[in-house]
């Protein structure tokens, strides 16, 4: 059915492979639809509690929170069309730990604007109080725009962000591993961890005893070479962007070859690509929902705002249903304040705009039609619950992935569809647990013990 990935071992077929599911709750951004009458408050603790309990009912491995340390802007003011504003991830997950008993609780936290000992301590505290259910999704930030909220501003060079991240994670792991059992005399945490380089400077000890899973599970999502190396060296789970089957297989093969270089077995890391999932009673209904979703996510004002970002000027006088703006774009590079644009993608916008103008002319597209065509890709999984369960079972049995991190687009229906419809289909195929077998996140993920 598929060509072997060059340079990689042909994946084995595992008829007993299990699908692992998590939810990546970004909490902000255009993928989350807020316009429906039943859309719940995105910051209310009740919303978080309802989602976490729903996922426990669906026997999910993990609930993830995203992170963004500056509210997005456009043309110098706070961007007003997307859901914005969210809680601190570790605080929110600690609150959920008290109200849940099984679900893994994963906080996205960056290594640029945190102190290693402080973050390691907060994560270990969540891990202890949740009885071994904490995870850390390790991310990096480099831009000075985000740094304007922090003591040292944009202190870290782009090229060194993974160098800092690797040193940070190594220090955190050393702190956690120093948290042994209580020796005689009541002195618990005595092993000092010290660093004194230009990237990491600290002298600290563990302050929290190990949780039942030993330490927080480490997630890594970066897809660059630096990100993949960090994942191969330290991660327990990778949260990749590669959902297409061939890309997923290629990614898995690449990661496993990197793991081997670090002396780690393939089973030491779970691969859970992030995915938008649209479930319908019929294929046709699912396709209809996916089309509706794209239209909601790229509303006419969103389309204008998308072009404003590239044009670098106010385009509010243009008709979203009319032709592309005839005014010339500014010659400045792309402003990172709309969110996460990698440095390498901030230049070359004039060529990009020319391509869009050509495409719009060739296919006679309006502004909103063009932006829908170029800015959002079709959700990777669209179909009936049975079709999606078939696809996912195929992915895990051929080791293209170990499961998925679902990115919800409608609350709660995009998640109840998975829990109430897809999960039973997976269970029928023998590809999903029928009860939690363990209590820790590490056990849910079937990762080898530390």
């Amino acid at each position: 059915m598929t060509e072997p990935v060059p340079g990689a071992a042909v994946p084995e077929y595992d008829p007993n492979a299990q699908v692992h599911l998590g939810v990546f709750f970004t909490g902000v951004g255009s993928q989350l639809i807020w316009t429906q009458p039943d859309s719940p408050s995105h910051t209310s603790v009740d919303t978080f509690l309802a989602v976490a309990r729903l996922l426990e009912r669906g026997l999910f491995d993990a609930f993830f929170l995203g992170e963004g340390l500056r509210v997005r802007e456009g043309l110098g003011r706070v961007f007003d069309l997307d859901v914005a504003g969210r809680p601190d991830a570790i605080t929110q997950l600690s609150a959920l730990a008290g109200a849940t008993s099984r679900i893994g609780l994963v906080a996205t936290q960056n290594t640029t604007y945190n102190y290693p000992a402080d973050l390691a301590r907060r994560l270990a505290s969540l891990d202890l109080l949740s009885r071994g259910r904490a995870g850390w999704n390790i991310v990096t930030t480099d831009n000075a725009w985000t740094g304007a909220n922090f003591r040292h501003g944009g202190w870290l060079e782009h090229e060194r962000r993974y160098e800092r991240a690797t040193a940070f994670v190594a220090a955190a792991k050393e702190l956690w591993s120093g948290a042994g059992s209580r020796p005689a005399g009541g002195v618990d945490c005595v092993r000092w961890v010290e660093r004194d380089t230009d990237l990491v400077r600290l002298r600290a000890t563990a302050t929290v005893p190990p949780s039942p899973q030993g330490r927080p599970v480490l997630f890594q999502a970066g897809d660059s070479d630096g990100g993949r190396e960090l994942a191969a060296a330290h991660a327990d789970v990778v949260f990749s962007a590669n959902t297409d089957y061939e890309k997923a297989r290629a990614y898995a093969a690449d990661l496993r070859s990197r793991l081997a270089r670090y002396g780690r077995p393939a089973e030491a890391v779970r691969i859970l690509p992030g995915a938008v999932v649209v479930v319908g009673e019929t294929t046709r209904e699912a396709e209809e929902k996916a089309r509706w979703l794209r239209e909601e996510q790229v509303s006419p004002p969103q389309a204008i705002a998308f072009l404003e970002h590239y044009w670098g000027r106010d385009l509010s006088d243009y008709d979203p249903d009319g032709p592309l703006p005839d005014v010339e774009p500014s010659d400045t590079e792309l402003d990172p304040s709309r969110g996460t644009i990698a440095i390498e993608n901030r230049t070359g916008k004039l060529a990009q705009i020319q391509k869009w103008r050509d495409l719009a002319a060739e296919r006679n597209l309006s502004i909103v039609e063009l932006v829908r065509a170029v800015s959002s890709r079709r959700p990777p999984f669209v179909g009936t619950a049975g079709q999606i369960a078939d696809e996912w079972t195929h992915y895990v049995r051929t080791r293209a992935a170990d499961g998925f991190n679902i990115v919800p687009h409608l609350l709660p229906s995009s998640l109840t569809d998975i829990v109430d419809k897809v999960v039973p289909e997976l269970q029928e195929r023998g590809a999903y647990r029928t009860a939690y077998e363990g209590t820790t996140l590490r056990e849910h993920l079937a990762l080898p013990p530390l």
Partner: protein
Amino acid sequence: MPGPDKGAGRGGTLHLALEADGDGAHPAAGRIASVPPADAVGPQALHRTVAAAEAGGFALATFADGPLPPGGRWRPEAGVRAAYVSTLTDRIGLAPVLHATVTEPFHLATQLASLDHASRGRAAWVVGAANDAEAQGTVGARPLDAKALRREIADVIDVARALWDSWEDDAVIKDVATGRFLDWRKVHHVDFRGARFDVKGPLITPRPPQGQIVVLAPDHLGAGGRADIALVGQPDAEGVAAAAAVAREAGAPLVFAEVEVLLDTSVPAAERFAALDAVAPWQETGRLRHVGTAAGLRDLLGALAGSVDGVRLVPAELAVDLPVLTRQVLPALAEAGLHVPPRPGATLRETLGLPRPVSRFARAAATTS
């Protein structure tokens, strides 16, 4: 909601706070029992303490903390502890110590705003200022001199307060007709410039339910009117009254006295004290310390009610002293009209009689329009 009575000799009820850290304030607390460490500082023990304090009628639980626990003992981070019990309680205020000196001010403000959302308006902050070489070393920094330290504390409180105001209450509009989720005119850069750091803002978290988190600061930090509650620690009632007057003069809306307690059980307090001190001595801290009967404590608190708005009780051994407080001392205070337990669902500001502040940005807009 009436505002707090600012005059000395207020004669009203006393707000009661409990220091709920670990096994208690006595350094030998928890050392005598042979409990596995992860259990002693784990979720069950924490929940048990806070649930008992809430059921007993305390308005507020505080959680002492520092980047390196004293004596190398285990201690989970206080903000995480407070958040953990936020969904397990419904009326008690939750006040972690967060240190202005060894944190990112932006994270500190976000964490406290998030605790307020998670607890539906019961978050408070005990300002910490760890500044010894070991604490500063955890973030690769060095101690600040006295002047710089005072300025740092002021700057961190000021920027946190500005950030809590940075989203006006009605910033999220969800206007389907125009596609606007929020009104950008109501989400503000704070453009804070401090002595040692600047913060652009806005906060990543919308305005907390209380508008402003309740800030408690020990009076010796010199936070003055920046705090909502000044904590005064003095060795006797006269000293408390004098310090309370100074704190009010400096602008503190409420003043709480610190009282360490070690109470009679089936074993007389003096005997318990001696047994604990034989393991590790409880050094004098300069705060009122009551070692004796529940009735004696009630009398002491009754006397303090003339000069302060509340007390923070600091038990020597939580497992032993907290039950005496909730079964004997608080009921006796309630009977004497000195104590009213918080109402379920109340915000901490409501419990304390503190007004909910309007965002400074909304005020500014109202003034200019």
